[in-house]
């Protein structure tokens, strides 16, 4: 679950001295929305986003000549002029959960990963989705998620797992969730076509599926 396993290590970066047109083409060519800004020692000094660039460039509502005039000023500006310097980041010991909570709280799209101030990776919201998708096996070929009512009967987990193992039914995820409002649930990711017979097996043992 450590971010060092999931982060992108080869990070495209900008320098504070880069011109705005230069950094804009860097972002566009690579289809990124965020670029960490580093100094010559690889230390993070800021973040620049496509949103920052869009505010810096002349409005598409201006006339051609108005735009050309404004553009002359923009051409001379550098990354240092518009980057954000107060950045939140992760460390290589951060976990996926740390990343998720940070994304949720800060509303940013990508997080730099810093080792003692030095940029060692980047991790975006998209990377987080991919990591959790893999963790939960969503869309994993040949698998289905089955929900089971957890009505508090004793040894429920043991009984479920024993039944599955006795009948050699492969499963790849097991999740128990307490939810007072909607009812407690156990989720199984079954790796077989035999869903109906698994449901029957559980029902016969007094264990009931739930959606």
């Amino acid at each position, binding site marked *: 679950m450590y971010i060092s396993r999931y982060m992108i290590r080869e990070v495209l970066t900008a320098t504070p001295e880069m011109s705005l047109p230069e950094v804009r083409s860097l972002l566009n060519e690579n289809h990124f929305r965020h670029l960490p800004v580093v100094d010559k020692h690889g230390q993070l000094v800021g973040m620049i986003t496509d949103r920052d660039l869009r505010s810096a460039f002349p409005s598409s509502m201006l006339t051609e000549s108005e735009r050309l005039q404004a553009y002359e000023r923009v051409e001379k500006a550098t990354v240092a002029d518009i980057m954000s310097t107060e950045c939140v980041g992760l460390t290589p010991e951060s976990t996926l959960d740390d990343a998720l909570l940070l994304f949720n709280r800060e509303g940013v799209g990508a997080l730099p990963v810093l080792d003692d101030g030095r940029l060692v990776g980047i991790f975006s919201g998209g990377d987080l989705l991919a990591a959790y998708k893999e963790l939960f096996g969503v*869309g994993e*070929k*040949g*698998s*289905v*998620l089955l929900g089971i009512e957890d009505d508090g009967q004793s040894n429920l987990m043991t009984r479920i797992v024993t039944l599955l193992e006795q009948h050699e039914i492969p499963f790849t995820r097991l999740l128990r969730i307490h939810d007072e409002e909607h009812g407690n649930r156990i989720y199984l990711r079954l*790796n*077989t076509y*035999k869903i*109906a017979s698994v449901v029957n097996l559980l029902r016969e043992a007094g264990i009931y599926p739930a959606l």
Partner: protein
Amino acid sequence: MRPPPLLTLITDSRFLDHDTGSDHPEIPARLQTILATLQQGDCSPFLSLQGTRPAERQWLMAAHDEGWLFRFEEAVLSGKTFIDHTDNQICYDSYQVATLAAGAGLVAIDLLEQGQAEQVTARDGLMPHEPGTMAKDGQVSRAPWTAQERLAGAAFCLVRPPGHHAERTRPFGFCFFNNCVVAARYWQQHHGRKRIVVFDFDAHHGNGIQSAFEHEADSLYVSIHEHPSFSYPGTGYADEKGFGAGRGSILNLPLSPGAGDEQFLALLHGPVAEKIALWQPDAMIVAAGFDGHKADEMSGLLYSTGLYEKIGQSVRGWSNLHCGGRLLSILEGGYELTVLGESVEAYVQGLLAW
């Protein structure tokens, strides 16, 4: 009065040799019940049987890596009872039978392209013996079919093992060779029908067909299936449209558990019909699975027998309208023996009703 068009059934008694053991739904009796029902039903004078051939290695490799072919053959010859997963039960004959299943599509396509059907009778309902057309009471009908009528009649491969879960390098869901993809490649590369649509109404998403088509512009996969959050194989989400050149080559239409005829028909006459009309195929393959029936435990869908007749009519109509009547159906799933025969018969009635 002009007789209705002929439907050619491609099948073979050797399909019964694929043994999946004692506790598996994909059993030889499936084919036996389908053929018995068709033989005894009203459609029988309009059906003609044709045997199959093993798919040539070249065409298996148009859909699969050679490494998979080697691995599969080695597994059966060394006496293994399953391959990769216990779902994929095999016996000594399974590799050979799977090549015959994949070959059925090739035989059918050759017939459709030639515009003729060899006519054979089946004494025991399964094995072709002498020329003639199969009739309910054993009488031989002498109605002469024109080449146009034979072409218009289309072909239906009654095969096992099924194919639509099989991926390029591995089996899935007791599918070993992807019969629909092999047929599609043959139609594209050997007969030059460049744009092929596969319409799949089996209750389960055909992940293997999607994998084969999702990066190409000239193949289209349209599937109505039980929602992947609740159903094997857990793939086939609606937002999947294909990648790159294949953007727009996938149309997944999942149905929630409990969905029935009404929900299916809304999709069939709506987005499916529209997509096929817009896409303009050169030929159509139907992955015909009957496990969405309400009596079939393999899915939570609740289709009626009558729905299959409507599907048959629709695909017949689309293929006549859009691709010169080039229509190939290939059997996929369907496991409840008490309704499987009548479901397939309803589909056949739909194909013939045009």
